[in-house]
């Protein structure tokens, strides 16, 4: 067991990082600006920080926490170090739902001069519930396809395969739809599809919080099963884990966390893949440690990536999903290469 200081370092580091991220944006900031932005009734630049950066830092932390936790759970349950929480088809499903909703809005209220044009574009606030339902439906489909009837539970192999297959198909369909609808109002869809925290406020965050609570609670409840699931299924079973229940529940929990995160920010790649590996590298050996560190690292990654995206090409913005992919992929490759021997031993074949 790690000392208390190890456990406390993570949230403390995250808070520090979030604080630092408040300094970064297209309009700059000074110490007093950032400091007063956290108080009541900020003014001037402090108000801009409070209105535009603070909610994005909070949203980034929440989204990253979801992805980090989901990735850690998933890699344990599927016993696969390359599993990303988006392989359930959550990204594809959410994207599909958003693009379909856009075309439905146009079909229901065609852009005609005679009627109120305001009804035929989707406001940003409508996207999260739409994305969430799409993500959950796609997840349900993948889980149904991955169900092994003989064992009466989810087959991890099939889970990965069907996730990849469905993901590829949904991605292709989304691209086709975006392009065939582009005569209409798809700019919002495109912005959202690249994984962005643009214009996110606290009001976009609240709907995700119940999912955070439920996801964390489920994870805590499943901790004993998850620790046993790190071993192969026979060992897990001999340790008293009810596989039929524990595996689907863990997967559903991870999927719900990932889906609600995608609903807020769109598909943000590599965070769920990378965070558990970084957690392992930074000393998260036992399961609890790894989950704790993964959640914090995931949150930190998204917060940092979004801050970077705000400044690299200001006044334009690099969507956070692109930044996490660009940074995450090489780091991930490096980590994987460094410790492939250990992985090879734990993963087995």
């Amino acid at each position, binding site marked *: 067991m790690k000392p208390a200081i190890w456990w406390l370092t993570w949230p403390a580091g995250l808070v520090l990082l979030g604080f630092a991220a408040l300094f970064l944006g297209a309009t700059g900031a000074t110490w007093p600006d950032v400091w007063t932005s956290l108080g009541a009734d900020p003014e001037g630049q402090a*108000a801009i920080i409070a209105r*535009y950066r603070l909610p994005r830092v909070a949203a980034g932390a929440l989204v990253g926490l979801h992805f980090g936790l989901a990735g850690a759970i998933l890699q344990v349950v599927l016993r696969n170090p390359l599993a990303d929480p988006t392989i359930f088809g959550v990204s594809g499903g959410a994207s599909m739902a958003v693009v379909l909703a856009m075309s439905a809005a146009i079909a229901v209220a065609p*852009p005609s001069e005679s009627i*109120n044009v*305001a009804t035929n574009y989707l406001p940003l606030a409508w996207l999260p519930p739409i994305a969430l339902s799409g993500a959950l439906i796609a997840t349900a489909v993948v889980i149904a396809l991955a169900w092994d009837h003989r064992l009466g539970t989810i087959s991890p192999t099939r889970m990965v395969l069907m996730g990849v297959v469905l993901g590829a198909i949904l991605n292709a369909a989304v691209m086709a739809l975006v392009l065939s609808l582009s005569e209409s*109002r798809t700019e919002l869809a495109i912005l959202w599809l690249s994984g962005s925290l643009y*214009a996110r406020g606290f009001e976009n965050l609240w709907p995700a919080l119940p999912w955070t609570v439920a996801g964390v609670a489920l994870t805590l409840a499943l901790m004993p099963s998850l620790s046993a699931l790190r071993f192969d299924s026979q060992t897990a079973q001999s340790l008293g884990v009810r596989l039929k229940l524990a595996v689907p529940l863990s997967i559903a929990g991870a999927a719900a966390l990932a889906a609600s995160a995608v609903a807020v920010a769109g598909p943000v790649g590599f965070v769920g893949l990378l965070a558990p590996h970084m957690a392992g590298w930074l000393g998260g050996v036992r399961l609890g440690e790894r989950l704790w560190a993964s959640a914090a690292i995931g949150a930190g990654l998204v917060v940092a990536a979004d801050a970077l995206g705000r400044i690299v090409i200001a*006044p*334009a913005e690099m969507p956070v999903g692109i930044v996490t992919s660009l940074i995450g992929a090489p780091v991930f490759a490096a980590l994987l290469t460094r410790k492939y021997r250990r992985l090879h031993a734990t993963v087995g074949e």
Partner: protein
Amino acid sequence: MRHLALTLLAVCSAAEAPANGSFPVSIDDARAADVIIETKPERIVALSNFGADMMVALGLTPIGITTYEGKRPVYLGPSLDGAADLGDLTAPNLEILASLAPDLTIGMLHYNGPFEKEISEIGGFLAFDAGDLATSDENVTQLGRALGASEVAAEMNAAFAELRRSIRERAPQDGPEYLFLWHYYDTFYAYQDNLLTTELISSMGAENLAGYNDSVETAEQAFMPLDPEELLKFDPEVLFVFTSHGGPVKANPVFDRMAAVQNGKAFSMGYQYSQPSGPIAREMILLEAAHLLYPDLFDAPEMPDGARARPLVFAE
């Protein structure tokens, strides 16, 4: 050249005139919602090209503008040099927008609609979408009222109507056949006459081979994709091309066979042709196209060199 001077004269007199119009005014914008503007706006951000164009025409300077596909409206000349850059029109930088503390933000519903709430809470938001000539006239009228220059706006519309009439009278009845293409890598779209750019060119006796589209709901949808063979089939006498991503057009043997290319009547057009609604853009389009269609009858208008049409060039 004479005509451009004519309208600019009107504009100059407007700038000198005391602020006309009374506030508050109620503006009917693209949202079909009445927006009340309490006092004459002083700090104005133009997210859309139309807004920037109208402001420059009125002798006003926006404190912030956006780009579209990375392009600034060069045709508006140096008057926008001091304006802050807010990034792309489809996702303007909200932090910079807020730091400018505008009391009016002029945008497009088409692109800014999803973020209407965020933009409105920073500074009053007015949305105008592009379309045909009638839409352009209406937008000029409404924005003119919002900016406290309703009389000048009315003069602008009247002067532009007069300019169109005088050019139509001088132009031949049976002008050349033409196409206006919007070009995007391997794809070409022909603008139909529902759109302001082609509506103006066709008003001078030239015939748009892409015709008028009766089946679309809004002018924004009035374009048709063309593959190279269809382009060759149309083979217009004059070819106007706006390359959305900039740079030369990808070479295709079809172009070598086209009459417009062979006769030096294929042109690469400036940014204003894709954003034609503003009073300056539409006048510039009318005058330049008149010259390109009928070089013997109409002189080249005075305009910033960066915005001028050039012979179409191809990338090998």
